[in-house]
């Protein structure tokens, strides 16, 4: 079989195919979506999800799981809509402190050899608590820069398309191609081997968590730009969405198998899956369940492909 037709290539392509199929479905249901304006409306809320997904992917790359990313994104939005507007210097410091805190948590997880899943679960309460303290009732106001930035109308394609492309490219370069990305994925594949080669797992974990913090901050700020004001509960669902997106992108929870491009496509797919339902007319009772069916269908497609691969 020629190389470009190989099964693993098809597997890599799957997230893109799924996204294309979903877009086709939406365009079929609602031709109006097939326009600059339509794509913008469909996809602009995927920008923060893309960032949150990449943050999650960094953590999953080293076999950890981050149950706090949603709460962290909310916290960033709350800080952004209050401190950052009223006292920009303090606001920036607060955001930097958040990133540093993320790094510290990474250090704690490594140093005490803790299961990331509960540490980040606890952490999510910390972020949420801080968010409620910073912004007890929803409100505040996004810095004008942010709201204008996310509403930029570049030529040819709407902003989310550019963001997705650039982020996917950078993620691919950093994680899949760069020499540091190899060490990162190696740390997920066989941490002991990486440690025995003289790398510091502590340094790796701290940088991975801090990077997740940076990406989470970007997610929070872009979300804030889109919504124009904050809310302590605004992004709690990003935790599960980001996990689902990473997996949809072809990654596994363990073993350092992560794919940045797939993750970005996965994030867009999940954003669109919900929209697809709004375009189809489903009885309100089953609307919630239908989202479950879509998730199942998308992933079942992947299973089918693997099945074919095995039997052929």
């Amino acid at each position, binding site marked *: 079989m020629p190389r470009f037709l190989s099964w693993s290539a098809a597997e890599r392509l799957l997230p893109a195919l799924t996204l294309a199929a979903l877009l086709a479905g939406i365009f079929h249901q609602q031709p109006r979506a097939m326009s600059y304006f339509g794509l913008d409306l469909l996809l602009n809320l995927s920008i923060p999800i893309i960032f949150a997904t990449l943050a999650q992917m960094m953590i999953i790359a080293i076999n950890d799981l981050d149950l706090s990313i949603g709460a962290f994104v909310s916290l960033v939005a709350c800080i952004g809509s209050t401190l950052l507007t009223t006292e920009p210097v303090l606001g920036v410091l607060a955001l930097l402190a958040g990133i540093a805190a993320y790094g510290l948590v990474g250090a704690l997880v490594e140093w005490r050899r803790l299961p990331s899943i509960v540490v980040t679960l606890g952490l999510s309460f910390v972020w949420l608590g801080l968010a409620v303290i910073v912004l007890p009732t929803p409100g505040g106001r996004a810095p004008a820069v942010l709201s204008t930035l996310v509403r930029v109308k570049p030529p040819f394609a709407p902003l989310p398309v550019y963001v997705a492309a650039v982020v996917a490219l950078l993620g691919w370069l950093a994680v899949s191609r760069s020499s540091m990305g190899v060490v990162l994925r190696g740390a997920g594949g066989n941490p002991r081997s990486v440690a025995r080669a003289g790398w510091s797992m502590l340094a790796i974990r701290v940088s991975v968590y801090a990077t997740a913090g940076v990406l989470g901050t970007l997610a929070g700020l872009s979300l804030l730009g889109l919504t124009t004001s904050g809310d302590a509960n605004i992004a709690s669902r990003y935790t599960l969405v980001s996990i689902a997106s990473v997996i949809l992108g072809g990654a596994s929870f363990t073993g350092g198998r992560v794919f940045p491009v797939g993750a970005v496509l996965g994030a867009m797919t999940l954003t669109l899956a919900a929209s697809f339902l709004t375009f189809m*007319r489903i009885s309100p009772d089953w609307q919630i369940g239908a989202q479950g069916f879509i998730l199942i269908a998308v992933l079942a497609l992947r299973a089918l492909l693997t099945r074919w691969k095995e039997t052929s």
Partner: protein
Amino acid sequence: AETKDMKIALSNNFAGNSWRQAMLKSWETVTKQAVADGVVAEAPAFTTSENQATEQAAQIQNMILQGYNAIVIDAASPTALNGAIRQACDAGIVVVTFDGIATEPCAYRIAVDFKKLGGMQVDYFKSRGIKGNLLEVRGLAGVFVDDEIHDGIEAGVKADPDLKIVGSVHGNWTQTVAQKEVAGILPTLPDVAAVATQGGDGFGTAQAFKDAGRKTPVIFLGNREDELSWWKQQKDATGYQTMSASIAPGSSTFAFWVAKKLLAGEKLPQDMVLPITVVTQDNLEDQLKHTEKGSVTNVEYKEADVSGLLAGLKK
């Protein structure tokens, strides 16, 4: 203008409790009739899978694409949807928010005065001559409604030297959570004379008092059928007195008619206040009779009711 060919959508963020189910049902009943009567072309309801502002914002953006003429919203957050609502307004769509309202200036707001709902409770306790310790059962932390009601209660208590809040828990507007939280804090509290609540949590609170073997205080209720029938039972057995108040789920139908009127070109104020639905010692039996088992005391509005109410408002 003629609204016969116009489409109105309901954007809802949560369906997982009896209030929301009643709200959706009222919407369906009233809009079905309206569609049959040729008032509007269609009026579907959409619910997001998770109670999340971001998901609802995406949903609203999709509705813009779908070309709805008006969108009625029960908002997950008063502020987080503002971006999407702004886009809708820019696209010439009429946006009406109710219950969970949105602060975006271009949207219409139909709300009950939640602060007043808080203050009303303290006023009632005062009118009963209750003095002493108050337990407050709050809603979901960080949500706008919780804060509003809480502020109303707090302001009322501050103005009254005889009442003191000795404990406060978050019941998340859920009977089981309220029951658990109250049961937890109760042993650490001195005698409690009254409980201020937010709706959907009164029955759980009563259960917790019962399980702890404490005397049932005056618990302000939130119009749920289980709360009312419990009250009826207590009333018949011991002459128990209290009061119950909440926003009617049928406010969605009010919002529907407002949207319809706006589409028809009527000028309406940006902010409208709905009366709080109150159940008192006297009309308890009557209200209970009209409340579906396991549901919430409801009021469904007809177009004429809305006109009447709005006329009253304008005065």
